[in-house]
């Protein structure tokens, strides 16, 4: 009975191919369900508003590019994207650092108040942002932080901490003990252990939480709308809402703006998410 790393026994090749084909067929079906609506958004972004209501699912009569130029200039999407990148990027780095430090402490270091600490942080995850928005805004205004990017970075960071800590604690807890033991023996300090061993080992976790944090903050609307008044500092979701007028919505321009907004997001998250599955060793099959 020969067995190789691919995990099947020689002779079962046909059975495995059928299974593989079925898997691929299923995945392609799923992919279609995911891409079709988005393709529709793309198609609609080339139509005029009137066309959308008369024949929403047919191909556009002509490729009406004005939607894009209008969305970009009037919506000031360029600056908005930059602001979003700054805000989400800084939040990302800071939350990963601060969050993983706290997670390491709760997950690995030994002290009595670990569990209550975790629950304390979890409270932050459970509160809906609407509840705390006005008290938060009032205090930030008093500190002179209203209408500034720093003023939204701090709440975003704080809201991202609970999730980061929650997930990273899990990753730190499932680290093999031997590595820490051997590092201890080699005389490493706790900081050395954290930076040189724990963080790299939990790299996947970092990327996962980083991705989730980035994405959640990228799409956040309410705080950004309330905290920021200057047009030059508005983030992307706020700019997208500009196309919803008081009486009716400019769907075609809004969808054009959405398409413009998707592209950088997709690039960023592709980079991140590919890192996550890098950990899968080539050739290995996991059941």
């Amino acid at each position, binding site marked *: 009975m020969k*067995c190789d*790393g691919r*995990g099947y026994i020689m002779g079962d090749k046909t059975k495995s191919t059928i299974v593989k084909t079925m898997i691929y067929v*299923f995945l392609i079906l*799923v992919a279609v369900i*995911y891409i079709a609506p988005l393709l529709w*958004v793309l198609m609609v972004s080339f139509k005029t508003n009137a066309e959308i209501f008369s024949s*929403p*699912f047919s191909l556009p009569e002509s490729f009406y590019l004005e939607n894009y130029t209008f969305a970009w200039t009037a919506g000031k999407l360029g600056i908005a994207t930059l602001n979003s990148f700054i805000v989400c990027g800084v939040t990302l780095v800071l939350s990963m650092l601060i969050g993983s*430090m*706290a997670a390491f402490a709760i997950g*690995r*270091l030994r*002290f009595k108040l670990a569990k209550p*600490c975790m629950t*304390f*942080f979890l*409270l932050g*995850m*459970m*509160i*809906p942002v*609407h*509840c705390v928005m006005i*008290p*938060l805004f009032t205090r930030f205004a008093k500190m002179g932080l209203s209408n500034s990017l720093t003023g939204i970075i701090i709440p975003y960071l*704080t809201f991202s901490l609970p999730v980061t*800590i929650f997930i990273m604690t*899990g990753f730190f807890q*499932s680290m*093999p*003990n031997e590595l820490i*033991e051997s590092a*201890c*023996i080699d005389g490493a300090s*706790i900081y050395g*252990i954290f930076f040189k061993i724990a963080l790299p080992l939990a790299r*996947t976790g970092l*990327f*996962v939480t980083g*991705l*989730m944090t980035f*994405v959640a903050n*990228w*799409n956040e609307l309410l705080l950004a709308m309330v905290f920021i008044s200057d047009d030059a500092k508005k983030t992307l*979701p706020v700019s*997208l809402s500009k196309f919803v007028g008081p009486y009716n*919505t400019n*769907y075609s321009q*809004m969808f054009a703006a*959405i398409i413009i907004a998707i592209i950088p*997001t*997709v690039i960023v*998250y592709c980079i991140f*998410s590919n890192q996550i599955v890098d*950990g*899968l*060793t080539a050739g290995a099959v*996991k*059941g």
Partner: protein
Amino acid sequence: MEEHEMDKLLRNKKAIIIFLTPALLLFTVVLFVPICQSIYYSFCEYKGLTAPEFIGLENYKNLFKDKSMVFALKNSLFFLIFSCVSQLVMGLFLAALLTNIKKGRNLFKNIIYLPCVLSSTALGLLWMFIFSPKLGINQALEKFGMEGPLWLMDTSGFIILPMWVIAFVALWQYVGQSMMLYMAQISGISTSLYEASYIDGCNRAKSFIHITLPLIKPMVATAMSLNAIGSLKFFDLIFNMTEGGPNHRTEVLATHLYTQGFKYNKYGYASAIGVVLIVLCLLVTGLINKFMKTENYEM
């Protein structure tokens, strides 16, 4: 001997403080105080621009008489259960599939995760179009001679059709996240374990059940907790698809909170709803942790 040294290292008080302080400080100053303020307001009548007046448990008493609150609770709980179960099953299934193929793994993974990244406003509008009575799916169904139901307006039944529709759209949007978490955990399982099992004659399915599933149990607990809290707090998609209508039938706790607080300026009452939400979240997380008590497996 080494155990004692390691223990000393891991109990280093100074290190603990340094590691914990930034997060604790930030969190307490920025979030904890407003949370406490919110809890205080829930015991007050607070109309926004005038000072809050303490009224004790009035808000909570009114909560139980509020028809919309009943809908909101019912819908939120439905959502919670549907979301946890469906995301667990679909997420695991997709993760298992994707970790087993080489070609196209990244492509499919990215496609499935894509909706997570998109703004719920955009997606809400998109699906509203697709499910609108004359356009969208119904138009396609007409070509086949069938008349589609009023997807987002039908108010019959215990759990009305719009809730199911929204629940499926939410699944569509967020299953990628669960899948990603499971994939991350699976990727950490050492291949030697699988090799050992194949040498012992296990087939794929068996090794999945006996190796993969137990080892990702901690992540299942995490992912499910995140799902649970997320579904109780769920706001964006519902608000953009139906705004809680028709007539508050698709209201959930978060939309009810928003309407009461920001549309009617009843901040005290809204804070009370918020407190109910927090309590529910704590309960559910506690329950999940209890059921999924895991040991730390060596991976």
